[in-house]
């Protein structure tokens, strides 16, 4: 994939060079006056790509200043920046982030554990599949949002309900993907393992588990995303801390700047999580052709 990007960059830059040459030829009279370094100046691609977002940001700022966009709709970029800085300095943002992170991680680790165990049971044994798969398939279609009122009735409005909802959301992606991964292992490899005299346990350990690991990572990626999304609504239930609380609190006070900050945090965390999974995959799936060749 990186190859492809590199290639498009190469072609676009060569196109650019041609264009300047032609321009130079057209305005030779004017450019003769400019010094040599200026005539051969080429702006780096990364900077060029930054121009349009910066312009947009500037337009947004100006529109807010001139009163075209009222702060009730969305705050000015400068105000958002100022609030973000204040929240970082006061430690408020860090406190909320830590609480959310903890909730997400606890819920995620429980959910992934349950998902993995269930997938192993139903993936590795026919009996397990008969018992476990149909209830899992039924439960997975229930949106976890719909469970909120029920969970509040059952478990109250404490921490347990919040974690439980995250667990529900993160279990199924891991279950479904790992189950499919186990069942989709190349039967030819299983045959080869049988001719090599592997025992059932060795077969699972040396063939089935490593072979289903890529699918597990797909599930984990989904689960991580869901654990963050779940925070948005989970943290609106009787909380005093967390990113979701911050957002809902800001809504009540019409603080659009804080809402935007929350959204920013989500996207940055999404990026960080993706980077984390990529690093994990690089170690765990080092044998894959895409990693081997790099």
């Amino acid at each position: 994939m990186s190859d492809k990007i590199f290639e498009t960059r190469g072609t676009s830059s060569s196109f650019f060079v041609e264009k300047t040459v032609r321009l130079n030829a057209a305005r030779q009279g004017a450019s003769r006056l400019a010094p040599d370094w200026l005539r051969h100046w080429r702006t780096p691609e990364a900077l060029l790509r930054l121009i349009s977002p910066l312009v947009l940001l500037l337009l947004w700022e100006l529109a807010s200043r001139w009163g075209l966009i009222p702060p009730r709709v969305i705050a000015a970029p400068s105000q958002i920046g100022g609030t973000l800085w204040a929240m970082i300095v006061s430690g408020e943002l860090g406190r909320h982030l830590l609480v959310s992170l903890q909730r997400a991680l606890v819920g995620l680790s429980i959910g992934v554990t349950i998902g993995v165990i269930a997938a192993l049971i139903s993936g590795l044994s026919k009996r397990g599949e008969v018992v476990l798969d149909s209830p899992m398939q039924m439960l997975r279609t229930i949106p976890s949002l719909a469970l909120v009122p029920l969970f509040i009735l059952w478990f109250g409005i404490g921490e347990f309900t919040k974690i439980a909802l995250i667990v529900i959301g993160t279990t199924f992606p891991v279950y479904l993907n790992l189950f499919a991964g186990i069942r989709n292992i190349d039967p030819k490899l299983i045959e080869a393992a049988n001719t090599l005299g592997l025992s059932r346990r060795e077969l699972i350990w040396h063939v089935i588990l490593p072979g289903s690991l890529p699918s597990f990572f797909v599930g984990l990626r989904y689960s991580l995303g869901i654990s963050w999304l779940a925070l948005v609504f989970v943290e609106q239930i009787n909380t005093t801390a967390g990113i979701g609380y911050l957002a809902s609190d800001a809504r009540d006070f019409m603080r659009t700047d804080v809402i935007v900050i929350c959204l920013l945090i989500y996207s940055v965390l999404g990026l960080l999580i993706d980077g984390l999974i990529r690093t994990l995959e690089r170690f765990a799936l080092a044998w894959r052709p895409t990693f081997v060749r790099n």
Partner: protein
Amino acid sequence: MSSIDLVEASKTTDAVAPVQLRNVVRQFGQQRVIDGLDLDIAPGEFVALLGASGSGKTTLLRSLAGLDSIDSGQLRVPRARAAVFQEPRLMPWKRAWKNVILGLRVPDAKTRAVEALTEVGLAHRLEAYPATLSGGEAQRVALARGLVREPKLLLLDEPFAALDALTRIRMHRLIIDLWRKHTPAVLLVTHDVDEAILLADRVIVLANGKIAEQLTIDLPRARDTGQEGFQNIRARLLKLLGVETLEPAAQANGAARQATASSVRRFAHG
């Protein structure tokens, strides 16, 4: 009605054939894929199995490899057996040497893996992942994985079919070298008549789940396709497989043909 005996290596004496099939039947629905087959393979014998698609070759090999059962008859195979398939079937997540010793329960496994990979000329690729190996290299790892188990019976299911012509010639030499060194009985399933004659002591033609014909190839070793008698055997086998050869025309201008044949000879080492 059916019985499969797995013979322990210690019990077999040299005199007893490692593979004994008596009246073996395997059927899928009403169709008998193997129909009352009798077959003995002597210790250290190299047998090639030819046959059109659907003649039961692969089913027979799978039964011998323990991947498929039989419906009736008697089948005796040594427990120490190994199979190499058309695709290398290496575990992509294991490095070459780990693939070789997969399922091998010996204390000095790594040393054995190094020895086996050195034997097939891959001492420099010990730590490679299968994704980085070429087709020929991967097939050599698969061969090493089979031979490291010191099998009494080596089953080869069209192992050279997916390789390019040059690699195939090298693999033919390698397989003969290794066969001489380890002396397993070999059963090679192939579509390639030349390959069968170049490598085997005996060529069996399978048709409708039965042995249609078997030929003992007593051409001296270090065989090549231009050898005296080679083309006769080839023509006979092709006829059995339903391919007519241009025998009369060939004999008419025999001298000219001899010259062209020798320039495109195929060789087997050993």
